[in-house]
């Protein structure tokens, strides 16, 4: 029943086969679903059926890694979520596109993939070769980039916060967003209050490390800025955030540098409160990483980066707090290097300086 038919059957039909079919048919339908970019990018359309089946994206990726179209970039033509992913513009082995944003999104995904593969032996976002789909030209003057849970979206900027074309220009921003995907598949830090600020901080940490490694910057050479050069002149600043000196990147930057200035905002639906200050309080763990990495010295992705990576992927959970994250990094530093060694001392000292330990 499910031979070549499955290749052209729409997702809802495949879901029905997966629900009602014999085991072999179910398997085949799931494999086909897993290969479907349309499904991955528009998970919402069939999301409820997939949840009833108890199938998640990780399981689908395991069933059918799609190495033939590994990094792909689409143009969503200023549409919103319901128009994703849009028209395919560049895939593996394709020549560069005439659209610079397509190429920047492609190369940013490629460099981020290479970083995780070469430094941490991680195969893509899910660790199992998940295809990395990106769509550019999302929305109208959309001043943002994000990981939707299934793919990357990039706006054009130019809405008052970012320069036009800026959303794909900063490699650390691209790697920040893709790291949200990795967090989804690992610690799954809930996007609220301290766990949400940790989620943000891990994205800034690895966003910065991807940039540092491409530039060949040691911890001492790095600028420790996120989104350098892409913010609009109205923000009167150099970047979105500074890991080294939180609160100094632009005129509205209110990130605290230590627990003394932690902002306890409510986690409500009020857009003024940012899910309990996730982009505010991330300044504290950001600075802890900067302090640890510069104290250890050398390339930040080698020791400090590994400690933070093992912490994120093996030692934290959805509701982890700053203190739990701090204790985990100290423990992991001892396991990876040595108890009371210079790495562990640097990590403990960093969290003490920012007032978490």
């Amino acid at each position, binding site marked *: 029943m499910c031979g070549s038919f499955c290749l052209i059957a729409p997702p809802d039909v495949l879901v029905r086969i997966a629900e009602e079919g014999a085991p072999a048919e179910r398997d085949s339908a799931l494999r086909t679903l897993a290969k479907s970019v349309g499904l991955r990018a528009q998970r*919402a359309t069939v999301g409820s059926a997939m949840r009833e089946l108890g199938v998640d994206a990780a399981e689908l990726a395991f069933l059918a890694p799609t190495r033939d179209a590994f990094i792909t970039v689409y143009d969503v033509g200023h549409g*919103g*979520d*319901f128009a994703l992913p849009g028209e395919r513009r560049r895939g593996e082995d394709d020549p560069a596109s005439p659209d610079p944003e397509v190429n920047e999104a492609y190369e940013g995904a490629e460099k981020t993939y290479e970083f995780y593969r070469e430094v941490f032996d991680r195969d893509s976002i899910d660790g199992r070769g998940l295809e990395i789909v990106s769509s550019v030209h999302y*929305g*109208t*003057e959309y*001043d*943002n*980039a*994000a*990981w*939707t*849970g299934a793919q990357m979206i990039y706006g054009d900027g130019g*809405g*008052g*916060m*970012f320069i036009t074309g800026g959303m794909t220009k900063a490699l650390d*921003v691209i790697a*920040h*967003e893709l790291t*949200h995907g990795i*967090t989804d598949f690992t610690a799954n830090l*809930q*996007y609220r209050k301290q766990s949400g600020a940790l*989620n*943000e901080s891990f*994205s800034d940490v690895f966003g910065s490390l991807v940039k540092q490694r491409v530039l060949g910057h040691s911890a001492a050479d790095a600028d420790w800025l996120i*989104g350098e050069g892409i*913010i609009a002149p*109205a*923000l009167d600043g150099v970047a*979105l955030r500074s890991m080294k000196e939180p609160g100094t990147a632009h005129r*509205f*930057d*209110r990130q605290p540098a230590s627990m003394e200035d932690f*902002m306890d*905002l409510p986690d409500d*639906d*009020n*857009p*003024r*409160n*940012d*899910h309990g*200050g*996730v*982009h*505010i309080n991330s300044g504290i763990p950001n600075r802890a990483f900067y302090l640890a990495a510069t104290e250890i010295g050398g390339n930040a992705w080698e020791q400090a980066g590994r400690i933070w990576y093992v912490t994120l992927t093996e030692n934290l959970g959805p509701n982890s707090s700053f203190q739990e994250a701090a204790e985990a990094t100290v423990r992991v530093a001892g396991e990876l290097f040595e108890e009371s060694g210079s790495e562990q001392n640097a990590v403990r000292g960093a969290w003490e300086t920012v007032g978490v330990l």
Partner: protein
Amino acid sequence: MKVSIVRGGGLAGLVTKTAVDADSLPPEEAEQLRAKVEEAGVFDLPSKLTTDSPQPDRFSYEVTVQDEGREHTITASEEALPDSVRDLVSYVKNVPGREDEVGPPDDLPSE
């Protein structure tokens, strides 16, 4: 008719507020604003269009419409925003005669 839109979150985590009063617009624009509000059916929408597990770095919105003694506010996650409301939001964000503010979280006054 007055429409005000507060947007928070996003990669930058900043808050913007955009407000427009139909009385201060040329008749044609005022008419278009009314049509967009009508099309979005703002007064008939539930007050919460939010998700339990928000996607990182997406925007969140608060849209308030005041008209002839009626007032209704909806809060929405970007990923749950109906296309018609998205259309209203981008119209208001670009209409000449609007008032714009930007600032850090927890800094812009509520109504």
